[in-house]
């Protein structure tokens, strides 16, 4: 089963995402900011990274840039969880190498259907 790295500084969002994905049979690892996520990504290889944008220490955009520098994560889908549907944030995400985005708020069904688009 594909493994997913879920990154968010909000514990409730992280729990919701993680619970939903585990319920659908994915393996999920949680990280609470970009620094933690990057370390985890170096430790093990994930099939998808789901990341919040606004986080302390290292934000989602920086995380994405850093992931793309790693050989293992050159083509791995990275989805940003963002409340900002504004074009500016999307451009920043894309320039950093993000695959796509999921606009908050989203419900578990939306999360799963979006994830299916990029996995497998």
């Amino acid at each position, binding site marked *: 089963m594909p493994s997913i790295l879920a990154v968010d500084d909000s514990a409730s969002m992280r729990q919701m995402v993680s619970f939903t994905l585990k319920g659908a049979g994915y393996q999920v690892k949680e990280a609470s900011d970009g620094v933690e996520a990057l370390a985890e990504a170096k430790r093990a290889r994930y099939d998808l990274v789901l990341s919040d944008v606004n986080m302390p220490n290292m934000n989602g955009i920086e995380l994405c840039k850093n992931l793309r520098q790693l050989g293992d994560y050159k083509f791995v889908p990275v989805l940003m969880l963002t409340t900002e549907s504004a074009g500016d944030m999307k451009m920043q995400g894309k320039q950093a190498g993000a695959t796509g985005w999921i606009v908050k708020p*989203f*419900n*578990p*069904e939306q999360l799963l259907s979006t994830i299916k*688009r990029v996995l497998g």
Partner: protein
Amino acid sequence: MSIDLSQFHQVFFEESFEGLDVMESELLALSPESVDAETVNTIFRAAHSIKGGAGTFGFMQVSEFTHQLETLLDEIRAGQRTLEKSHVDLFLQSVDCLRAMLTSLKDHEAPDMSRAEELKKQFIAILKGEVASSPANEADAPAPETAADAGPEGWVVRFIPSTDLLQTGNEPFRMFRELQSLLEDGSQLQIEVDSSRLPEFENLQPEQCYLSWTLTVTGAINKADIETVFEWVVDECDITYRRLGEAASADNASTDNAGANNASDSSSESESSSDAANIATDTNNVTVASVAEAPAPVQAQITSIPVADATQAPAPKPAKSADQSSIRVSIDKVDSLINMVGELVITQSMLGQLGQDFDMSRLARLQEGLSQLEQNTRELQESVMKIRMMPISFAFSRFPRLVRDLGAQLGKKVNLVMQGENTELDKTVMEKIGDPLVHLVRNSLDHGLETTEKRIASGKNETGTITLNAFHQGGNIVIEVRDDGAGLNEEKILQKARDRGLVAQHQELSSEEIHQLIFLPGFSTADVVSDISGRGVGMDVVRRNISELNGTIEVKSNRGTGSTFVIRLPLTLAILDGQLVRVRDQTYIFPLVSIVESIQLQKQTLNNITGSQPVMKLREEYIPIVRLDQIFHLRHRNESVDDAMLVVVEGDNEKIGIVVDDLLGQQQVVIKSLEANYQKVSGVSGATILGDGTVALIIDISGIGKKIEHRGAQPGKEQAA
């Protein structure tokens, strides 16, 4: 699949309240003169998380309100707007408002939105102010574009990806699969690949995408649905749409390309406007259908939330609301607990083995094992108590805001200094000390600190300082509230006490004694009762609250340089240092803190002034003598109290001598509530179970004091001449 989101609510509320606390403290650190980018960022992140979580978990009122706040913060963060003091005030009010809303929602009540609406208007007014908003032109453009899209026959999509497409983790194959999954029965997807962009083999970069495709969809499908598939790549790729059967002219293609970009704007626009619709609808569709149908679900969602919360939520879990408090424990503490339980298990199995075939030759090992068990148990007890310990910063955190607001209201410049914020104390004690502390700080600000003019006149710094300090001392925590104001006005206090008959007209008191007067019931020194301190709650209530926690309060004051209130509290309420005493065949426990001394009664010091109540002269002071066997109606011998053992205890600033038959040991006892296990008994504050399994009552010293007052005895307050 359906997932019950309410299971995440508790965590959401906890982290939101934490977020609000962070916002508040950071806002207080923010001033228009020096805007620190990281501070603004932290505030923004907290607001942003609350908004995101609230939206996800269905609290639309909260997320909509936070959105306004976030928008203004974002403009400030991006440097589009300069921070003004009024903004900070507005943000602070919003924090209060959000806290109230979240509290209501947590209790399954519909929040009061009137204040939120009020604040929202202010935000909108500010936001409209200078920066021209762009949404206006975005709003009307996309509607006709999407509305005209309901073409039934099918579409031809020319998809020419950017060569860097793969580098962002996008994969054309998965997009086509997604498109395939959108098709209904009877529809068909035909894909033609165009390899004309492929370079010569030696020039071929393996990580680039050279292929392009023509996708032909036949059957009923909306253009908007197809667009969602390419939503993430539309800006970098060349995507053109053509209705099936229309001729592909060069002209058409170029306008269509522009149209595609336009449409992407529109889809992002509709996403933001119909955030709520996304939640409300149950479809598996990630993106949004069309602008036209969005408003209806939005409204339905908004109105349905409070109703649903009010009607169905309380029914399944009625007892769960306010009292269900939780505690955050650092992982270190949990680890040390687990470690200790491990050792306990080892000791237990060692003892168990020893017990299986025991003979006297192994007595030494048994004793060793038992002493190890004792040590394990003590360590375990200490660790468990530590779980309840929290840094006092939780109680201090509200003061920066309080001092700021009060200072502004009174027109006084105040600097708040907090020290020893990491000093730990029991969670229950912390919760109960909050209100008395607020009262003391208010009092210091209102009565303690002088007005700015007076301070300047007396040569002081015009900014007053209030210091909160906490530290451990022995088994107690000491909290000090210090101000550098005028100090207590002794003449005024004494005068007032005399006016009220609290002190006899010609009685002379030392400074110490005058200071203590402010803790008497019905005492207020302010010339004008202000709405800040004069809320009908006096220092007497503060003192009573503190003595309910087995603590004490005293005041030190120096004329002209300020006053200091010193509160001493036990670290925990669950365990008490007790003195075990025997009265007849019963064992009682006195709180060790209340014991002044233990003496042998001597006949010549006894005095039966009032007849029924014997008193004793102890160093210029008369103290009443109490027999527990009488108070608790034990079978009592009718002998006199001559030559008995007397324990002098102090409660509510009054000394009592209690006659006991024997002093036993001192030990820490775990307090069990009598009310919960039996019923309230006056004169007894609780019970504990001793090592031999018997129950011992813990004596409530001030309760005993009240009991003898009721019996018409003299409380022993007056001084000997």
